C-alpha cells in the first residue's frame, strides 16, 4: 500500500497543531484571569478571591503542562515533516520562533514554578509578580508565533534567491500586513475562550447550589468581560477579514463561497458549495450583505473564486463551513453577554435558571470557535504554505509515506490517552470545586507525604 507522505504530513501537522492550540488558547486567558484574581485578593484581602485563584491554578497547571508537551512537538515537526519549508523560510521565521523561546517560554516555565509551588517560599508581592510574568509570557509567546504565522499568510520584507527566502526588512517581516489583526483577533479569542469556561463552571455551581461565593466571582467577571469583548471580537474579525480581502482574496472568496467576481454579492447563510460545478446548492442568503460588509457599498464588486486557477483555490467547503461555525458562535457569545446584562438588570443573575444552563452549554464554545477560525485561516491559505510564494506540496520532507503513517497513528493514540486523561482530571477538579479554608488538606491522611503538585496547593490556613 502506498501512502502519500505530503498528505499524511499535512494531516499530522493539522492534528497535532489543532490539539496544541486548545491549550494555549485556554491558558493565555487563564493566566490573565489568575493575575486579576490575585490582584483583587491583594487589594481587598477577601479570601474568596484567593480560593478562586487556587482552584483555577490547579486547572491551569494541567492545561499548561499539556500545552508545553504538545508544543515541543510543534518545534520539531517543522524539521521532521516540513524540511523543505524549514530550509526555504528558516532565515525569515526562524528568528521569530527563537525570540518566542527567549522572551516567553523560559519566563513562563520558570515563574510557573513559583506560582505553583512558591506559596510558602516567597512573599505575596513576589508571588503576584510571578503570576504576572506567566501572563506576560503567554502574551509574548502569542505575539511571536502569530507574527510568524502571519508572515506565512501575508509575506513581506523578504527577497527570493534560488528558492530560498532571505530577510530584507525585519520590521516589515515582524509587523507584516496581517500580523496586528491576527494578534488582536487571536488574543481576544483566547480571552473569550477562557471566559466561557469560567462562566460555565460558575454557572454549573449555581445550578448545583455549591461554592456560591466563588461561583459569583466567576459569573460576575466572566459576564462583564464577555459583554465587552464579544462585540469587540466581531469588530476585530471584520477588520481581519478586510485585511484578508486585500492580501488573500481567494481565501475570502472561499469563506463566502463566492464564485463570480461581481457586485451585489449576497451574504450566504447556508449553502453546499460544489467545487466541481463551481456553484452552490441549496443557497439561503441575504441580498447585497457581503458586498456591504466587504466594500461598504451594496453594489460593491467582490472577487470570486473563478478568478483564480483551480489549482490556486483553497478547499472551499472547509473554509466556508468553518467560517460559519466561528461567526455563528461569535453571535451566540454576544447574545450571552447581553442576556447576562439583562439578568443583572433584573437582579436575578444569581438565581439558577435556564440562563445558567445556557452558560454551561456555552462552556466549550470558545474552543470550537478558535479551532474553526484557525481552519479558516490555514485551509484558506492553501494551496500555499507561504501565500503566493511557496506551495505546501513542495515543502514536505523526503520521507517514506509509511513512516509518516506510523507516526501519525502513534500521535493519534498518544494524544487520545494523554489529553483524554487530562480533560478527565480537569473535569474531576471542577466537580470537586474550590477548597475553602475550613476543608483544608489536613483531613487528608496522605497529605503529609504529598509532593508539591499543583492540586495540593495549600489553602490559606495551611500555609501558616
Amino acid at each position, binding site marked *: 500500500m502506498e501512502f502519500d507522505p505530503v498528505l499524511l504530513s499535512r494531516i499530522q501537522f493539522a492534528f497535532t497543531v489543532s490539539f496544541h492550540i486548545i491549550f494555549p488558547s485556554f491558558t493565555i486567558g487563564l493566566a490573565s484571569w489568575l493575575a486579576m484574581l490575585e490582584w483583587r485578593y491583594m487589594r481587598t484581602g477577601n479570601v474568596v478571591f484567593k480560593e478562586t485563584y487556587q482552584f483555577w491554578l490547579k486547572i491551569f*497547571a*494541567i492545561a499548561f*503542562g*499539556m500545552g508545553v*508537551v*504538545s*508544543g515541543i*512537538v510543534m*518545534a*520539531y515537526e*517543522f*524539521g*521532521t515533516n516540513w*524540511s*523543505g*519549508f*524549514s*530550509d526555504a523560510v*528558516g*532565515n525569515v521565521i*526562524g*528568528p521569530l*520562533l*527563537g*525570540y518566542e*523561546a*527567549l*522572551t516567553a517560554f*523560559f519566563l513562563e*516555565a*520558570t*515563574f510557573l*514554578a*513559583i506560582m*505553583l*509551588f*512558591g*506559596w*510558602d*517560599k516567597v512573599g505575596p508581592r513576589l508571588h503576584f509578580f510571578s503570576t504576572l510574568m506567566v501572563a506576560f509570557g503567554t502574551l509574548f509567546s502569542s505575539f511571536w508565533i502569530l507574527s510568524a504565522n502571519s508572515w506565512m499568510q501575508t509575506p513581506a520584507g523578504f527577497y527570493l534567491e534560488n528558492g530560498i527566502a532571505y*530577510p530584507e526588512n*525585519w520590521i516589515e517581516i515582524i509587523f507584516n500586513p496581517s500580523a496586528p489583526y491576527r494578534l488582536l483577533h487571536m488574543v481576544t479569542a483566547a480571552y473569550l475562550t477562557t471566559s466561557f469556561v469560567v462562566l460555565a463552571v460558575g454557572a454549573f455551581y449555581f445550578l448545583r447550589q455549591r461554592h456560591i461565593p466563588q461561583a459569583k466571582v466567576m459569573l460576575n467577571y466572566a459576564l462583564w468581560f464577555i459583554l465587552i469583548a464579544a462585540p469587540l471580537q466581531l469588530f476585530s474579525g471584520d477588520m481581519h477579514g478586510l485585511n484578508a480581502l486585500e492580501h488573500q482574496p481567494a481565501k475570502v472568496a472561499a469563506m463566502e463561497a463566492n464564485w463570480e467576481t461581481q457586485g451585489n454579492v449576497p451574504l450566504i447563510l447556508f449553502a453546499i458549495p460544489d467545487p466541481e460545478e463551481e456553484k452552490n446548492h441549496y443557497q439561503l442568503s441575504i441580498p447585497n450583505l457581503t458586498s456591504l460588509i466587504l466594500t461598504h457599498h451594496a453594489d460593491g464588486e467582490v472577487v470570486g473564486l473563478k478568478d483564480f486557477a483551480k489549482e490556486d483555490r483553497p478547499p472551499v467547503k472547509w473554509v466556508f463551513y468553518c467560517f460559519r461555525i466561528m461567526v455563528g458562535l461569535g453571535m451566540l457569545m454576544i447574545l450571552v453577554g447581553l442576556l447576562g446584562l439583562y439578568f443583572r438588570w433584573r437582579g436575578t443573575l444569581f438565581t439558577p435558571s435556564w440562563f445558567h444552563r445556557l452558560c454551561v452549554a456555552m462552556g466549550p464554545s470558545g474552543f470550537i470557535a478558535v479551532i474553526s477560525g484557525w481552519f479558516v485561516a490555514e485551509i484558506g491559505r492553501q494551496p500555499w504554505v507561504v501565500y503566493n510564494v511557496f506551495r505546501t506540496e513542495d515543502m514536505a*520532507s*523526503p*520521507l*517514506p509515506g509509511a*513512516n509518516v503513517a506510523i507516526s501519525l497513528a502513534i500521535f493519534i493514540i*498518544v494524544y487520545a490517552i494523554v489529553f483524554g*486523561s487530562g480533560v478527565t*482530571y480537569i473535569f474531576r477538579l471542577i466537580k470537586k470545586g474550590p477548597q475553602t479554608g475550613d476543608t483544608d*488538606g489536613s483531613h*487528608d491522611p*496522605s497529605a*503529609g*507525604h*504529598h*509532593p*508539591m*503538585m499543583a*492540586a495540593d496547593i495549600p489553602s490559606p490556613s495551611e500555609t501558616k
Partner: protein
Amino acid sequence: MEMLEAYLPWIWGAVIATGVFVYVILDGFDLGVGMLCKFRKNEADRGVMINSIAPFWDGNETWLVLGGGGLFAAFPLAYSVVMPALYIPIILMLVSLIFRGVAFEFRFKAEGKGREFWDKAFVFGSVFAAFAQGVVLGGFVQGITYDEATRSFAGGTLDWLSPFSILCGIAVVFGYALLGACWLIMKTEGELQDWAYGLAPKILTVMLAFMVMFTLWTPFLHSGMPLLSIHLDEVMHTALWERWFSTPNIFFLGWIPVLVAVVAFLLYRAIARRQEIAPYLYTAALFLLGYIGLAVTAWPNIVPPDITLHEAAAHPSSQFLLLIGVVVLLPVILGYTGFIYWVFRGKVTHDAGYSH
C-alpha cells in the same frame, strides 16, 4: 559588521552547543530522577524524588526548545537535514517527553490502576526520552547522507540505526541516571540519600565503560568498514583519525582522556567521602569533557560528514537579529533560572511537603 559576519556561524555554533550542554546537565538530572523512581516503590520516597524536580523540569526542558529553535533559526539547512534523517528517534523522544511531562500532574489525580499507569509512564517516558536522545546523538555523530543538489537528506529511514547509535542511547540513559543519583544526593537525606550514595558509583562505572567504548569506536566511524574487519592503515588515513592522532593535535587533545580519568577519580572520592554538592558538579564536568570530545570529532561540521557550520548558516542578518536577543535576554534568563534554584534550595524531606 563584516568582521562579525565572518564569525557569526562560529558564535552561533557556540551558542547552540552551550544551549544543548545546559539542557543535558539540567534535564539530564530530572530525567535521571524519573528513571530512578523505578527502584523506589515506596510512595513517600517517590514523593520526595518527584518533589525535588517538580519546580525545575519545565524550565529545564525549555532548553531543548531553545536548542531546536536556535538550530532552525541559525542553521536552517542543518535543521532541515537532521530532523528527517532522525525522524524515528525524534518522534520517540517527543512521545516519551509527552508521557513523562504530563505524568507529573496526572499521577496525583489518578487512583489505583490509573496511578500505576502514570507511574510507569513517568519512568519509561524518562528512560526512552534519554535513550532516544542518545540515539539521535549517535546517528548524528556517525554521519548523515546529504544531497547537495536538493539541499536535503538523501539517506534511508533506518540509517540512524546502528550498533553505535544504540550504544550511545544506552550510554545517555546511564549518564542521566548518574546525574539523577547525584541530584538526589544533593536534595535528599536519610535512607534515600544513602541509597543514592550506594548507587552512584555503580552507575558511574558503567558510564565510564560506555565513554571508553564510544571514544575507541568514534575514529573508525567514517572509515566505512565494519568494526571487526578493519584495516588499520586505511582507518589511519581518515580525516577523523588525523584530527585526533596527528601531531601536534594529539598534544592539544590528549589531555581530554587524562582529565576524564582525573575527574572520574575525584567523583568516586567525593561520593565515598559523602560530599553532597561535589558529585553533581564532577558529573557535569565529565559530561563537559565528553562534549568537548564530541565537538572536536564533529568540527567544523554541523551535520557530519558533509555540511559545515558556514554552509548551513542562516543569512547573517537572521543570525545577527537573534544574536541580539541571546546577548540581551540569555543573561536575564540565567538570572531568573538561578533565582528559582535558589528559592527551592535545600533538602526536600518527607514531612516538608507542600501540604504543610
